[in-house]
């Protein structure tokens, strides 16, 4: 492996901050979900890179990547369910206008 692990971590950091900026800047709930997925994927890249370069034989880091996959799938299913039921109540996906549950 001639590519240093730092390069993978750098790509992971760039993608993580990109997703983070998207979550903060975008107003559409579906796009915010997509940006959260980008952040999770960036974390996965860091986990796999460290696991392959530094891990012992048993690949602990990659196991956590599988759990991240599970969490991401559950998060998208429930998140889209919430977005769709809120949309059915009032047809907006702009998170600034969804404030029915504000106390």
């Amino acid at each position, binding site marked *: 492996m001639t590519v240093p692990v730092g390069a993978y971590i750098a790509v992971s950091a760039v993608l993580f901050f990109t997703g983070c900026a998207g979550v903060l800047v975008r*107003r559409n709930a*579906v796009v915010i979900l997509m940006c959260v997925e980008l952040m999770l994927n960036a974390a996965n890249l860091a986990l796999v890179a460290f696991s392959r370069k530094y891990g012992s034989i048993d690949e602990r880091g990659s196991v956590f990547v599988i759990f991240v996959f599970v969490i991401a799938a559950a*998060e998208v299913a429930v998140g889209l369910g919430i977005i769709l039921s809120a949309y059915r109540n009032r047809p907006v996906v702009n998170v600034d206008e969804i404030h029915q549950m504000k106390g």
Partner: protein
Amino acid sequence: MTFDFVEPVVFALLSIGVIAGGAAVVLLNRITAAALLMAFTFLCMAGMFVLLGAETIAAFQVLIYVGAITVLILYGVMFTKFSDGPRALLFQRQTPIAAVLVAAVAIPVALLSFSFTSAPPRPGGGDLPALATSVFTDFAFPFEVASVLLLAAMVGAIVLTRRDDPEEAAMRRRR
């Protein structure tokens, strides 16, 4: 002739794909295009996993992210109206303070990320045996907990999106 230059070149292409795709997801106003570019980003990420020698993870990535999650997001896009409000958050009074705070975190992380040196390469043979051994011995209990979580998420998604239509309920009662 050696082929040592292939891996850095492939890595450079994949990282350009990942970063450009991620930036496009954040910047594009057309949500369908953003969702498809997110799928492209995930594909490039799978290529990076292959480059790292984690073939199993790459296969899961293609199956779950490119397959399932992208399709779900596309359905979400289709069921809602394509609208995105103005991005008013970018230019506020807190922007300089926020920029300083982000730089305070991001610059040390970026510098630290280049300070790692590679360990010697490991013997080949794929990552599936090690992964499977870990999952079914040390991580057997978290694995079962994850399956319960998936079941709960499935039931929750059905309950959240079920339509309580009064007409339909009345029709069912009449039958």
